[in-house]
């Protein structure tokens, strides 16, 4: 009997050993913010889980926290565990010097994504980040291409001082300063849909003319549209008012497809593919090219036009469900 048990245990160990030998992939440790942070983060986390999977030849360990100190200790743990690569979206830009130095000493390649760290570019392989200003520029140049006689814009801003707000506001402010657009009103709704609705309602009640709504995220655009609907103002493709949103939630892109909105811009949460390619290049002994002087690769941003969007775009690029 006992011999049988020993045989069973030994064979189990052998099987397990064979399995782990089979699963021997590139070890990556991913430090990110938790998916509950936002729709953006949810898509971001999902993207990394899909790309750095066992099928793609990776053995990924993940850690999610909004707190920098927890992220730091997780990164230390990953270094101790002997990962091949460390992928970091830091909660704060400072405090990472020791981790980066330890990783370099251990021969671990570090990639930063989404958020930068205050560090010398020599301390990491590459950073894949978004250029928020670029996202705003893309949207405003789309707007100016629409060839309206005049642009009377209701501008609904996000939480003041956030990266997304600064980038999305900057481009429109520049166009207003050049006299290309007229800002009927510029107010922050702090990402609050209901507040956005109240702002648009107050403009409608004042009787002032407007023909563009530039809302800095999808939710606020939806709030603005609710106010238009109640006032009987048409919007979207062939409507009186152009509606622009940001983030590209799936439900928002469906509004585009239905012609209720006109434009949705995105700060792309999909950085995993780019990092995957760079890791493969390094594994084959190549070097990473195309970095700027800060060691960054700027993520490609997208903007969707209601007249050109397809079901496939919604499935591929839409956030959430």
């Amino acid at each position, binding site marked *: 009997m006992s011999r049988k048990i020993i045989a069973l245990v030994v064979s189990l160990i052998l099987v397990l050993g064979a399995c782990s030998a089979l699963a021997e992939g590139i070890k990556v440790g991913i430090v990110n913010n938790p998916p509950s942070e*936002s*729709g953006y983060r949810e898509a971001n986390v999902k993207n990394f889980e899909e790309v750095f999977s066992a099928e793609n030849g990776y053995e990924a360990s993940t850690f999610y926290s909004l707190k920098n100190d927890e992220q730091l200790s997780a990164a230390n743990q990953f270094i101790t565990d002997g990962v091949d690569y460390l992928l970091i979206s830091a909660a704060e830009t400072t405090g990472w010097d020791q981790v980066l130095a330890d990783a370099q000493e251990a021969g671990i390649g570090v990639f930063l994504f989404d958020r930068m760290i205050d560090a010398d570019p020599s301390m990491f392989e590459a950073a894949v980040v978004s250029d928020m200003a670029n996202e705003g520029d893309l949207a405003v140049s789309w707007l100016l291409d629409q060839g309206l006689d005049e642009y009377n814009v209701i501008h609904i*801003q996000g939480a003041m001082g956030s990266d997304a707000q600064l980038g999305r506001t900057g481009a429109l402010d520049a166009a207003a300063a050049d006299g290309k657009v007229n800002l009927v009103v510029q*107010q922050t709704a702090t990402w609050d849909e209901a507040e956005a609705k*109240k702002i648009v309602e107050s403009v409608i009640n004042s009787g002032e003319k407007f023909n563009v709504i530039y809302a800095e995220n999808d939710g606020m655009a939806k709030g603005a549209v609710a106010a*238009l609907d109640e006032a009987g103002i048409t919007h979207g493709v062939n409507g009186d008012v152009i509606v622009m949103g940001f983030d590209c939630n799936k*439900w928002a892109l469906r509004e585009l497809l239905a012609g209720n909105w006109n434009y949705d811009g995105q700060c792309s949460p999909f950085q995993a593919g780019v990092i995957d390619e760079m890791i493969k290049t390094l594994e084959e002994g190549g070097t990473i090219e195309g970095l700027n002087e800060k060691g960054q690769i700027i993520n490609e941003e997208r903007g969707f036009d209601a007249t050109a969007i397809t079901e496939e775009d919604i499935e591929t690029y839409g956030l959430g469900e």
Partner: protein
Amino acid sequence: MAKKSFAAKIRNEYSQLLVPLVALALIILFNLFRDPGFFSISLAKNNLGNTVLQGNLISTLNGASELAILAMGMTLVTAACGGQDISVGAVAAIAGSVFVKVLRGSAGVTPLTVALGILGGIVVAMLFASFSGTLVAVFKIQPMIATLILYTCGRSIAYWINGGATPTVESPIINSIGSFIPGIPIPTPILIVIVVGILFSLLFRFTNLRLYTQTVGINQGAARLNGINSVGIKLLSFVLLGGCCAIAGVIGVSRLGLINHETLLLDVEMDAILSVAIGGNLLGGGKFKMSGSILGAYAIQALTITLYAMKVPSTDIKAYKAIVIILIVAMGSPVVKEQMNRLWKKLAGKGSAAKFRREAA
């Protein structure tokens, strides 16, 4: 003599409403001078083809709906417990999430599933509220500290319920809760406030709840000696506030057909407490007047709409709001009130003395 006591009764009953009424009147007067068209109401056809009422007045009444409902519940908690619930926004977000969860979980949005969703939201919100209520009533924790727990974690709980960041629900039924019922030109949220108000007044009319709540609020030891279950009364006030939170949450979700657990009724707790204070209610508990709180809610909303209409820069709006609120609260403070009373008596005294002299001559 009878006349005088009647006048005194009126003064006692309604002097409390003086502050919110004066505040509202000042905002209205200010707007009349600024832009006489501010209060114009017009009929328009909305994009669904319904004829509906429009204008700043309607926007104010409509926009304040959630706040007015929360203010009613907050008044009760304030009166019974001598403290405030700062988790109403978070509990409303939880209830709204439950509402959305039920709708998205069921096959289609029908009147039945909507009713179930609302019921589910109310039950869950009442459970969470009774958690806070138990901490306050049984464990004698200060209301603000007890509700700090849900204030902190409530919105995370709301996130767990649905997972996605901003789940949406589309349906004509949802639309008629959040904006207009076809054929009725008044925004539905205004009607809901009226219904909730009537329910509360019926409750006070046919039960001793008002008396008991005030008694517990003024002196709970004496209340207990008189056979009033002060723990039960405090708990009940929280449960009723939970119901109010759920209704406010459902309205908030239905306005847009979307729930954002992070921003739904954000910072509403502060406005709700302010409504109670502006309404002339004692924040330390005891006697209360719900109508004062409702007026307070409308005053706050009127102020916000006015600032929007004046295009006050977004970054400054809260500062202006704070200044006006300081003035209103100071106006209602006991010290200022006493000074005013003294002034009033002096004037009235002089008047009657003059009258007496005239009569003597």
